[in-house]
């Protein structure tokens, strides 16, 4: 009976109801977007870091991976030390650099990664083809386009540019393979990969037996933090970064977005609350007579309040559902703007939809919809009956 009354009452004032639902929907959309923004970067980054299953990263002491041109010496020695820990399952040494590629009449520079294809975690092969042989070079679609070349073409690759002599230390003919997608690559950026030994050979003495970065997979069930701590004690000239630490660093740099998200989110919630309160207040003021009659025929105050609150809830729920769709669309649009951040891995999302956070946010909105209806409803139900009856006229 109560839901029937609530439903009929809302339909009676169709345009008013629709307007309120729209308002709540926008508030819900904003709230949702802000929740997505607040946690998006962090979660997205974490997913990215863990996407290939590498939990710990080693960079030259005092730096973050690829922050500088510094390198870690003694790849063989470091690998040996790492292997001595039974919790460490796989070790991937990576060397970064830049190369110059000549294909036909085109000349393109690109960043390059020297890797070991059996353990690498930096790219995914889109075709199944990988750098099997020592003279293969894997490229991404962007680079392929820039070169105007095809898979299987042979190109001249030069590395180790010396600005003083204006020559390259190493030049080779390599065969293009791939294409591959670099996980940490930014948009519209050329990327290539080759075997580490090949890059080392082409690069001259300053890169011999050195690596820019080590990526480590720990044994299942092992504590990544403990492994990280162990590494730092064993290898004093590296900084070991666990996923948690990396995320904390990113968090700190992007605290601005989180704060923005929090403030706008709080404002949205408040506005949603205000909208429903206003609607319920207007509604009960109009129906003071009806409410008095219900009380006169013996309907309890609680039931009267419930019936009114249901109306507020209905609007909040409808608004939240609509706002969910609206929020997702808006988030995608905003994300597209932010993803052209220079140097940012393509795979990073600023707005990430996480079901749990989203449901809590929307649940909070609906709860505030309930709360905002209670006070005006209670006040209306508490008015002296005789007076209200005298005052109101219902034709």
């Amino acid at each position, binding site marked *: 009976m109560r839901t029937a*009354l609530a439903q009929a009452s809302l339909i009676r004032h169709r345009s008013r109801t629709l307007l309120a639902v729209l308002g709540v929907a926008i508030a819900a959309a904003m709230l949702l977007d802000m929740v997505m923004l607040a946690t998006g970067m962090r979660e997205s980054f974490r997913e990215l870091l863990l996407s290939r299953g590498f939990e710990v990263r080693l960079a030259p002491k005092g730096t973050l991976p690829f922050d500088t041109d510094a390198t870690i010496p003694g790849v063989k020695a470091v690998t040996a030390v790492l292997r001595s820990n039974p919790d460490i399952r796989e070790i991937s040494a990576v060397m970064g650099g830049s190369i110059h590629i000549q294909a036909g009449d085109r000349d393109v520079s690109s960043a390059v990664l020297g890797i070991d294809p059996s353990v690498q975690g930096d790219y995914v092969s889109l075709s199944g083809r990988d750098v099997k042989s020592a003279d293969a070079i894997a490229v991404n679609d962007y680079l392929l386009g820039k070169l105007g070349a095809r898979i299987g073409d042979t190109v001249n690759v030069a590395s180790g540019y010396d600005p003083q002599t204006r020559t390259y230390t190493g030049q080779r003919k390599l065969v293009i393979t791939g294409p591959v997608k670099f996980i940490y690559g930014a948009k519209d950026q050329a990327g290539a990969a080759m075997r580490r030994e090949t890059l080392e050979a082409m690069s001259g003495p300053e890169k011999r037996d050195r690596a820019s970065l080590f990526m480590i997979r720990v044994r299942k069930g092992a504590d990544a933090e403990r492994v990280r701590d162990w590494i730092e004690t064993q290898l004093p000239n590296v900084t070991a970064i666990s996923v948690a630490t990396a995320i904390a660093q990113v968090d700190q740099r992007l605290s601005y977005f989180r704060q923005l998200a929090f403030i706008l989110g709080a404002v949205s919630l408040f506005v949603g609350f205000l909208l429903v309160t206003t609607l319920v207040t207007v509604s009960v003021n109009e129906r003071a007579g009806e409410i008095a009659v219900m009380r006169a025929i013996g309907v309890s105050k609680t039931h009267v309040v419930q019936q009114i609150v249901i109306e507020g809830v209905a609007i909040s729920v409808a608004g939240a559902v609509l706002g969910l769709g609206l929020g997702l669309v808006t988030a995608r649009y905003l994300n597209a703007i932010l993803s052209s951040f220079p140097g940012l891995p393509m795979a990073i999302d600023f707005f990430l939809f996480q079901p749990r956070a989203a449901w809590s946010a929307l649940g909070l909105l609906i709860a505030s919809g309930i709360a905002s209806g209670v006070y005006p409803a209670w006040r209306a139900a508490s008015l002296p009956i005789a007076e209200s009856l005298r005052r109101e006229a219902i034709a």
Partner: protein
Amino acid sequence: MSSPIVSLRDVRRDYALGAERVHALQGVTLDVERGDYVAIVGPSGCGKSTLLNMIGVIDQPTSGTVEIAGKRVDAMSDREATSFRLHNIGFVFQRFYLMPILSAVENVALPMAEAKVSRKEREEKAAELLAYVGLANRERHRPSQLSGGEQQRVAIARALANGPTLLLADEPTGELDASTGVQIISLFQRLNVDGTTIVVVTHDEDLASAARRKVHMRDGRVVDA
């Protein structure tokens, strides 16, 4: 001799109207026996509606006692009063006060729904009551689709929904034309003959004459005719 069903002793009701104090009831003592049909009459502002509100437990006296069916109702909490009204009092208003968004049968069923009667039972009872007041074929109509007299009959059916001890009516024919009023008057008579105790407040001479007993009021007091 059984005790009266309604018993008022020196009931007073004051309230503030702006800066002034209005003495709506100035010491009313009154009994109504079971099965009685009482009409309370008097000039405008004599306090008859206020008196009815006391009996209907819609309002509480400033002083004095009100007993209904042996129970003291003048000092009940809001919750108790509401529950008492639901089960013991049927109120009919001058302006019908039906829920415009509900059909006739839904309006009649409303008090039963509140009294937690099952859907099937209350739909049956509501249909029965509507038939009793002569509206068997108007069950699904909304109040806006009913004439004034029909709306008032729905209101009476609603008042009877939970089988109340008392049926109270405040100017039930006030908004109706003479011929429709006659129908309502005869309905009330039928109800009383069938055993319902009725107290009406009215200006309508015909309705007052149809009652068994008239109580005259003036300036907040019961006076002799």
